[in-house]
């Protein structure tokens, strides 16, 4: 089942003196349960592509379909609700609400979706367990390490079972040990919850863990390989 379809998408930035073709004719699709990494040199358009898929930005040209929604047809306010319902985000940093505890951060989107309290607490505990932070539920983000914060962010992104999780360089600020731990968790959740992960990276070690590697250069897809072993 396809969760995302991208059809000849272009994103051109005009707001500098020269126009920048950040995404220049990309056609791709993603299946449910994928564990895909997007790689490419700096400035190749990875962040831009993820933002377009996640409905954070609109393409200049082309079509993006997510879970039956044609994103270009959504009004800005609908786009926000679309993100809340269908997309999980993990950013490089500043993922969490500093005044809330880890548990409350994990529960945040469930609250926005008005889940009943018991259900929310149960799901939060389950997820904190699967990211290995059962005992840190009451800690504030500032009391957690960078790796732990990213794990809380993954748990939050996953909580309401979105169509997929987008993670833009989730390990960029982590040491290699924490990065490996985060990837272990993402892999496990990909397996156990059949959650689709699409993430970008610069890190060769991270790349090796993916089952599909899409390489961008100058806003174009230059290779798209799926590994069958593993």
């Amino acid at each position, binding site marked *: 089942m396809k969760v995302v379809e991208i059809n000849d998408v272009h994103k051109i930035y005009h707001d500098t003196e020269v126009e920048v073709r950040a995404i220049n004719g990309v056609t791709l699709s993603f299946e449910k349960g994928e564990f895909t990494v997007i790689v490419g040199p700096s400035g190749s358009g990875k962040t831009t592509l993820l933002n377009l898929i996640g409905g*954070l930005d609109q393409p200049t040209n082309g079509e993006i379909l997510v879970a039956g929604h044609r994103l270009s047809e959504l009004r800005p306010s609908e786009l926000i609700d679309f993100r*809340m319902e269908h997309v999980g985000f993990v950013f490089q940093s*500043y993922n969490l609400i500093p*005044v*809330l505890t880890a548990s409350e951060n994990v529960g945040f*989107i469930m609250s926005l979706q008005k889940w009943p309290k018991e259900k929310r607490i149960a799901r939060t505990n389950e997820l904190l367990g699967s990211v290995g932070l059962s005992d840190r539920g009451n800690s504030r983000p500032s009391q957690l390490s960078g790796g732990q914060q990213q794990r809380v962010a993954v748990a939050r992104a996953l909580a309401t079972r979105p169509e997929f999780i987008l993670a833009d360089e989730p390990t960029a600020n982590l040491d290699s040990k924490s990065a490996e731990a985060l990837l272990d968790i993402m892999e496990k959740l990909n397996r156990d919850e059949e959650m689709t992960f699409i993430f970008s990276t610069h890190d060769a070690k991270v790349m090796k863990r993916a089952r599909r590697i899409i390489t961008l250069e100058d806003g174009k897809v230059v290779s798209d390989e799926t590994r069958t072993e593993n």
Partner: protein
Amino acid sequence: MITEIAWKNIWRNKSRSLIVITAVTIGVFAGIFSMAAINSSVQQRLDAAVHEELSHIQVNNKDFRSSGDIQDTIQGADSLMTLIEKTKGVKAATGRIILMGIASTSAKSEGVEIIGVDPVKEQQIFTLPEKLVPGTGSYFKSETKYNMAYMGETLARDLNIIRFILTGDALAKLRNEKVPELVITRLQSLKDQRFISEKAFAKAFEVLLSPSQNKKYGLKIKEAAWSFREGSKVILSFLDVNNVQTSAVFRITGIFRTNNDMFESVSLFVPGEELRRLTGLREGTYHRIIVELNSDDLTGEVTSKLRESMPGLEVLSWKEIQPDLALMADFMEQIYGIFMAIILAALAFGIVNTMLMAVLERTREIGMLAAIGMNRRKIFTMIMLESVFLSLVGGVSGMAVSLAAIAATAKHGINLVKYSEGMEAFGYSAHLYPSVDIKFFLITAVLIVITGIISSVYPARKALKLNPVEAIRGE
């Protein structure tokens, strides 16, 4: 959830929030407390006007107020009073005889309004009998064969009935009140000397003392030397029913002290029966019926009811007799509203500034919230609640401080007597007992919330303008 986040957010930068909260606290305190003080002054004035001078409603012969003629009496006043007392909301009614006349002593004469009253009835209606200066006699209680008169301190002074004498007792009293021996020694030279006016007395002792001693003890010295001989005589002259000039000697039964010099200087009370005998007015005739109600709130209603049932007479509420007082009462709330609005507008700038800093500091975080699906309304609400909480915390603490200050000063009052001459001439007490209606607190709370909401609009709009993509990307 949003509420909880907003509440926690205001404590992220504790010192900054505390500065704003303190500013709001001080502003609200200043507003409420000064209002409470002014309110008490106005309230005291209104109480005095109603309970010492006017009563709630007055019924007059139609022509009496303009003519002042002794013949313009109310027909059938006795049965009217019975009728009035049966009207719902009326506590008591009594009749008065009112004559324009002259009061004289061997030293001076003053024009006065001689009011003939029923002392028993008056005591049920007015608090004036309780305003008797202790030690000056009583309110028509002494058993004598003389005509008695109850007069205000100002009139007594004007007629030189009040003297200033530093007797041995007076000096002992000063000693008791901790006036230094040095000052008392200096005053010895004035001992037992009699002064017929306060001015002359002040002049005499002021040269003996240093300016600071005068300032500190002047009032106490005057108070101690204040003296009055019970049974002092005053001659009252007026026209009788046949327009014949009549005079009679009255003795002073007591002297009262109010905050209203004007009222004190023209009003003189005597038993109605005496006046009747001296003027030849028939039994049961009065110029004015005064009506006391169970509550001031009934004034308008009962006034129009009485007016309807007594078409031939002039029925006036205290608000109509002294419209300036009524206006004052009505304006209080508006003045307060304007006052608070000015204070809160100033505070709003502080809140806007603080919230703007808070929003700009949290660009990435707000961008992240928008990215993961917190909609515009929720973001706006969050910023607005932060601003409301800031102003509410300050407002509540300001109200608490005000309450404490009011409670602390309400019992003994704030004494402005030193600066009071101007105030008392117009009937406003110089001794303030701050008090506020609970309504003022509610209005204040509402104004504070409104301030919080208004102050949040600009910062919240700034937050909404943030583009989540750029906020997240931004290095």
